[in-house]
């Protein structure tokens, strides 16, 4: 990238200083006079009818402001007791029945946390247990207990407009893709491989659990401070649920203590709102860690995958993907759709059949988790691809490279791919780990092996990001954006883009944190979409401001606006830096005074082409792709089943890296996070009861679980329409870790583990079966 000043530089985070001093604002630090605290009584049953609630003793406890039940909410006029981004299926508090063990049934708001908790002890609830749907494969069978009798679509997002009302089934959404003739291809195949892979539910465990503060201000306007990745959506949802005009709701989001998909859509905001509405006091609800485990999870997925091989090539693939979305659909249908259509992989396969089912069960709701479901489908297709290569006795890297899509070729959806560095990613991964170099002879109980995995994610399309850039007379600028800084470094990215476009310094750009009173709409901070979407929006807004500057300079200096460039706080004739005006001079010329501002708004709104509901075919299913590859070397102890990760290379095509160090950091830390998920993380349910819902029982990667060696490799295939060619990086390093590790285990000891996590028990069992 020639002639760029700050884009492409690894400048420091904007938030480093306040964060390292512990001064960064979090919702949990905000206190209001008279603020009430919340405790919630949760259903002990996976599925039960609520037959009686006696709250009198709880209400009588001094300091208790309100004890609230779902039945009372349902009777309040003008309030929808249910919310949700795909279906309005989730009650603020359970109305007639509880749908999972942990479902909120009664809420107390009191002067302090201990009083609220004490009051809960005094509330009596009687339940009548109902038969429950525990297992995702059982839940789709006829006669299974129904989690919901009816499914009511939400219509909140354009990409979910095709979600239909339904009833008498636990399948709330089905995606279908039909390409070619799979039956014929299977009939004519030399070999057919059929496997089932599973990945377990897991929890995001943001170090900051969910927390929300709601109050009505002196104008009776609703104010919400919330740890959310989707402030714009929260406003829309609260408006729809409570019938409050959107301009009377102000949602603000300070720094997030981690999100990873957990803090999307609405969580505690509806409950805090109704409690504030009833009590007329500020209400803050901060989840405990145990409650966090009962709030949102990563989808458990079972994938049945069948592949035909003819003359050494993959000629057909049939995928049946079952998404265990838990008691409420949350964003499950979007995941079942967007990840569903990638289930056959980034390969030229002439015949593809995909059925992707989003299924209700009586368990904790599942939602987005770094990768939006794609790690689960890659786990299945890449594991099987590797397995097939080894069965056929061909090189697993070549076996992937040969059918991998080239620029302009068609994905299974019929969409021509662009900026699609999958082959580059695979080659980089192979090179990094010395693929093909013979393993030194091994004996004894410690065996080493290498694995490569590859896959792609498609960015959520359509989606929308709006931004406003305000330039001040002193050359400093403010950027109004609803992108949430949750650790990914978006403040640096957006500042770099605006500084570059306006020709000012990185330090002169200030990012205004999400505040729906002033920051325009943004779909979500998720799905690795912000650098591209918000990056384009802030760049276009900055370009509009620059055009206004150029207009003034062009008329003053009598030159064509097109001959002008911005740099070093000035606008000048290209190649003649001294022939120009500073921002201050331009403002003075335009306004006759210095205290003024120039502002512009822009919206980035990529669209998708219609997708045929029967075949999943679309001329354009996505705006861009994230190709990913991981290379791993492991050492397997054949006596204990322990797997030690010796090397982990995380390779991702991020498009042009606006901030290379931050791209590397995203690839690397996503890989470490997903190494933990792959090796040992699992939420364990027994008859719908979560049995490891605390950090004493549920463990994720610590310093001790680090691979002996880890390194990121940023592949940069520029995207024509990305800001300076950028795409994004947040999830790419997460996508292919699990199969790379399983493939390396296979390489080391010749056994295939088909269920995550890759625990010593599973490895040992596979070794025993081999014998």
């Amino acid at each position, binding site marked *: 990238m020639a002639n760029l000043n700050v884009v492409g530089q690894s400048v420091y985070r904007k938030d480093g200083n306040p964060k390292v*001093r*512990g001064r960064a604002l979090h919702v949990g630090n905000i206190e209001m006079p008279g603020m009430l605290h919340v405790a919630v009584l949760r259903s002990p049953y996976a599925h039960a009818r609520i037959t009686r609630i006696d709250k009198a003793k709880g209400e009588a406890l001094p300091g208790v402001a309100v004890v609230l039940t779902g039945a009372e909410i349902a009777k309040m006029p003008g309030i929808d007791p249910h919310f949700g981004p795909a279906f309005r299926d989730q009650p603020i508090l359970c109305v007639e029945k509880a749908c999972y063990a942990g479902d909120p049934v009664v809420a107390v708001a009191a002067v302090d946390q201990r009083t609220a908790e004490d009051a809960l002890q005094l509330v009596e609830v009687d339940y009548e247990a109902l038969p429950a749907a525990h297992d995702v494969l059982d839940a789709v069978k006829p006669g299974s207990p129904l989690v919901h009798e009816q499914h009511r679509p939400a219509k909140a997002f354009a990409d979910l407009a095709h979600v239909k009302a339904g009833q008498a089934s636990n399948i709330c959404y089905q995606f279908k893709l039909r390409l070619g003739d799979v039956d014929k291809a299977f009939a004519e195949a030399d070999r057919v491989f059929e496997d089932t892979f599973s990945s377990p539910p897991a929890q995001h465990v943001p170090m900051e659990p969910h927390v929300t503060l709601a109050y009505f201000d002196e104008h009776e306007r609703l104010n919400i401070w919330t740890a959310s990745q989707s402030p714009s959506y929260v406003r829309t949802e609260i408006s729809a649920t409570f019938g409050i005009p959107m301009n009377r709701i102000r949602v603000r989001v300070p720094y997030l203590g*981690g999100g990873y998909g957990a803090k999307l859509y609405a969580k505690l905001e509806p409950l805090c709102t109704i409690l504030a509405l009833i009590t007329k006091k500020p209400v803050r609800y901060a989840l405990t860690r145990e409650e966090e485990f009962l709030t949102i999870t990563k989808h458990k997925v079972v994938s049945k995958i069948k592949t035909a091989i003819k003359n050494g090539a993959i000629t057909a693939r049939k995928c049946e993907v079952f998404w265990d979305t838990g008691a409420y659909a949350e964003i499950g249908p979007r995941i079942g759709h967007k990840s569903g259509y990638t289930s056959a992989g980034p390969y030229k396969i002439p015949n593809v059949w995909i059925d992707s089912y989003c299924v209700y069960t009586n368990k904790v709701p599942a939602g987005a988790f770094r990768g939006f479901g794609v790690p689960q489908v890659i786990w299945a297709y890449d594991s099987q691809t590797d397995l097939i290569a080894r069965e056929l006795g061909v090189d697993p890297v070549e076996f992937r490279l040969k059918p991998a899509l080239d620029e302009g070729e068609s994905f299974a959806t019929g969409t021509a791919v662009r900026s699609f560095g999958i082959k580059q990613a695979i080659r980089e991964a192979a090179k990094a780990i010395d693929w093909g170099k013979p393993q030194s002879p091994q004996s004894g109980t410690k065996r080493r092996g290498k694995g490569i995995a590859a896959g792609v994610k498609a960015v959520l399309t359509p989606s929308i990001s709006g931004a406003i850039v305000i330039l001040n007379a002193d050359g400093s600028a403010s950027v109004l954006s609803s992108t949430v800084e949750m650790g990914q470094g978006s403040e640096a990215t957006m500042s770099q883009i605006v500084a570059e476009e306006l020709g000012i310094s990185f330090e002169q750009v200030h990012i205004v944190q999400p505040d729906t009173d002033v920051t325009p709409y943004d779909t979500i901070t998720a799905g690795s979409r912000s650098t591209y979407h918000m990056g384009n929006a802030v760049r276009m807004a900055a370009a509009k401001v620059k055009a206004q500057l150029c207009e003034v300079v062009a008329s003053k200096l009598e030159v064509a606006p097109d001959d002008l460039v911005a740099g070093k706080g000035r606008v000048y004739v290209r190649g003649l830096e001294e022939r120009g005006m500073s921002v201050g001079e331009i403002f003075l010329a335009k306004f006759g005074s210095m205290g003024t501002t120039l502002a512009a708004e822009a919206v980035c709104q990529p669209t998708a082409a219609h997708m045929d509901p029967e075949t999943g075919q679309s001329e354009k299913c996505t705006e861009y792709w994230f190709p990913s590859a991981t290379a791993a070397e492991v050492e397997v102890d054949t006596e204990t089943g322990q797997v030690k990760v010796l090397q982990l290379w995380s390779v991702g095509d991020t498009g042009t890296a606006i901030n290379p160090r931050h791209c590397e*950091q995203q690839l690397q*830390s996503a890989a470490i*996070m997903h190494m933990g998920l792959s090796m040992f993380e699992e939420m364990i349910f027994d008859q719908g009861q979560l049995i490891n819902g605390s950090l004493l029982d549920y463990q994720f990667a610590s310093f001790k679980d680090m691979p002996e060696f880890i390194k990121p490799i940023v592949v940069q295939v520029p995207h024509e329409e990305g800001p300076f060619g950028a795409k994004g990086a947040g999830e790419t390093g997460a996508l292919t870790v699990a199969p790379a590790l399983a493939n390396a285990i296979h390489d080391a000891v010749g056994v295939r583990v088909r269920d995550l996590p890759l625990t010593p028990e599973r490895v040992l069992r596979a070794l025993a079966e081999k014998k």
Partner: protein
Amino acid sequence: MKREITLRVNKIEWKLTVDDADTLLEVLRDRLKLYSVRESCGVGACGSCTVLMDGAPVSSCFLLAVRAVGKEITTLEGLEQGEKLHYIQEAFVQERALQCAYCTPGFVLAVKSLLEENPNPSDDEIKEYLSGNLCRCAGYEEILRAVRVAIEKRAAL
């Protein structure tokens, strides 16, 4: 039961009436407004609420406030030297050893204690010492580099 106690926090003595059941975390956050101390797991398993008690890291969520009487408590705020960052904080910024940074105060304090116990730890010793502090953003590689830089900075003091 309520009782009067004196807590010495960041070299300041506080006379407080606390409940026997109050954790040190609750007192530091809710009463003294020391917001660098963060609750995360509530069971002493993640290190987000780490403070130093007589120089050694403890989980303040898992320690009753009454047990901290007579001890010297240091929170991240206690490392402040005007506007200048502590050298460990400098190292964290320099090596980009923070993302969401909710865990950062706990890590910085744990590193301080580590380097006072062992001014020149090996990578394995660093990993072992810091294994009780969890970072869900998984920035461990950067934190490891930051500790190495902090070791150099300390030696150059």
